[in-house]
């Protein structure tokens, strides 16, 4: 298990490094003056030249690259073109907002999906199985902005049950994550985005769990667990669902692959002050340092979640946890 964790961690670091490199190349391939991506064109000539030197933009590409990596690691991510705030400070606040929405939405989808998938397989071809399969196909084919907009129109604008956007009522004074998660207002604002995220993500874990569960239910050790005289709920949960869960963890990385796009859309629809919305705003305002850093931060978040999925898989599967083949 130790070797496995080390291996997964190294792989994650390598992936982050690769993403950073691709970002470096991409942002320098953009049309126009490459320096314009780091130095605001609004500044006067003298200031621009000074900054150019400071950022090493007059240096050869390879030196710039090394400098870029060094700045990344030391959290010197430059300043926003529009507000002149340090990019890191802007991100720090947005990062938590995204993590909250994504974390709650994903966990909600995973837990509910796994539970529903288990029930569907246990009573296969029952009303829940058929109903949920159809619902999953519908929700999966509806892009999240459609679901989100529909929810907003009906529940917020028509019925006034939920706020139309944002994370807190306008003008609320927020001084930290703790303030946010202990406020009832926050959860009121969270309902619709969470439903939207869940509607989008729920289908995959649910259907994967169902299929994997059906496969497990056909295996010899399930029949044997029944022969032992275990009550049905123990056979279903302890023997079948526990094993079927591994397939869900495996595909959850696939799910995470879609997470950046989905997050950007949901945050935009609900004006959620997270990194997804920030990325859209920054791109619209040509605020390159912010856009670049936001993209990288989102990517790192996804890579970390993937890492967590890998580790929990290793923890679920004793063949990885303890290793070792058969003996004599």
């Amino acid at each position, binding site marked *: 298990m130790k070797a496995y964790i080390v291996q997964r961690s190294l792989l994650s670091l390598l992936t982050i490094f690769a993403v950073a490199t691709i970002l470096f190349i991409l942002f320098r391939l953009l049309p126009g003056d490459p320096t314009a991506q780091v130095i605001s064109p609004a500044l006067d000539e003298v200031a621009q030249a000074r900054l150019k030197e400071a950022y090493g933009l007059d240096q050869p590409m390879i030196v710039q690259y090394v400098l870029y990596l060094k700045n990344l690691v030391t959290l010197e991510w430059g300043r926003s073109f529009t507000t002149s705030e340090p990019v890191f400070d802007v991100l720090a606040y947005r990062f938590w907002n995204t993590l909250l929405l994504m974390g709650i939405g994903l966990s909600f989808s995973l837990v509910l999906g796994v539970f529903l998938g288990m029930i569907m397989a246990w009573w296969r071809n029952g009303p829940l199985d058929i109903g949920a399969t159809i619902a999953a196909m519908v929700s999966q084919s509806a892009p999240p902005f459609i679901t989100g907009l529909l929810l907003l129109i009906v529940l917020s604008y028509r019925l006034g049950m939920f706020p139309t956007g944002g994370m807190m009522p306008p003008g609320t004074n927020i001084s930290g994550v703790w303030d946010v998660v202990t406020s009832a207002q926050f959860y009121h604002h969270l309902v619709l985005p969470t439903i939207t995220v869940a509607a989008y993500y729920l289908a995959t874990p649910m259907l994967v769990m169902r299929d994997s569960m059906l496969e497990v239910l056909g295996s*010899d050790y399930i029949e044997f667990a029944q022969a032992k*005289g275990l009550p049905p709920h123990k056979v279903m949960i302890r023997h079948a669902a526990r094993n079927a869960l591994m397939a869900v963890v495996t595909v959850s990385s696939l799910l995470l692959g879609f997470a950046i796009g989905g997050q950007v859309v949901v945050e935009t629809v609900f004006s959620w002050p997270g990194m997804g919305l920030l990325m859209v705003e920054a791109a619209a305002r040509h605020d390159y340092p912010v856009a670049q850093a936001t993209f990288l931060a989102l990517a790192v978040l996804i890579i970390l979640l993937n890492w967590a999925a890998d580790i929990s898989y290793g923890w679920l599967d004793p063949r990885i946890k303890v290793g070792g083949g058969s*003996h004599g």
Partner: protein
Amino acid sequence: MLLEIENLKVHYHTRAGVVRAVDGVSLSIGEHEVFGIAGESGCGKSTLIRALMRLVPRTAKVTADRFTFRGRDLLTMPDRVFRRDMLWNEIALVPQSAMNSLNPVYRVGDQIVEAIRTHSTASRRDAESRVAALFDMVGLQPDLAARYPHQFSGGMRQRAMIAMSLALDPSLVVMDEPTTGLDVLVQERILRRLAELRTRIKSSILLITHDISVIAEMSDRIAIMYAGRLMEQAGTEAIFDEPFHPYSLGLQNAFPSIRALDRSLISIPGSPPNLINAIPGCVFAERCPFVREDCRTARPPDLEIAAGHRVACLRTADIAQIRAAAKEKATWRS
């Protein structure tokens, strides 16, 4: 009597038709008895066990004139009571596929502890020390209990399954092909262990296999099964020394190693019938060299030839002739 079965039928209702996997089986097993059932692959051995342990799928219909365990009716017993009173306390199973019957994500010892604690009030520690004793009994190092199934070899898993079946001192241990799929040396060792255990435990054993030599070594009584029915059942001596059914005679020719080493191997031509077809007469008629016209029209009744020796054949009167002819290779040519 421990287990009494009269005219048990297990029919699978499939889209293609009704599969008569078990079709009118009658047998009884007494206390501290080893009862062997031998039969070719697909003749319904596992289905019989599934009916006994309530593991048949919903597509199967189970009927019987009598189906009792220590006098309690198994057909009408509620599921909950059956699980609590019968499974593992009274009837335990060594499944056909020991290789895949252990859940890969739990430690082997914990899976046995689970069986013990489901059916008794034993504490975890008591259950664990019971596992250690059981492992010792089947010849496994007690510390192996903390290992996962993938760290066990086939033979070790088979031993663990045997240990698990004995966990609660059941009245009856059902063993479905306990040695199939293991290499010959391991088979030999498991069999020796079983023979030794037999003298130490008080459970009865229902031993099921297609390997008639395994059954011959272990059983007090033997039934020969074919296409969902029992052709003949008798004490082990009687089955081998004076068999009555042509199928038993044919099997004996196919396994010469049991008694007569000098005879050459003769196999029965043809193959078992498809169980999806309803057969009005004897199921063996198609392959039987001694078939008569009436064999095909009427199902032969279970005849009690001697005490405890039952045969389902219409031609038992001509047995001297049939036995003589069965020794000839020419008889079995199709």
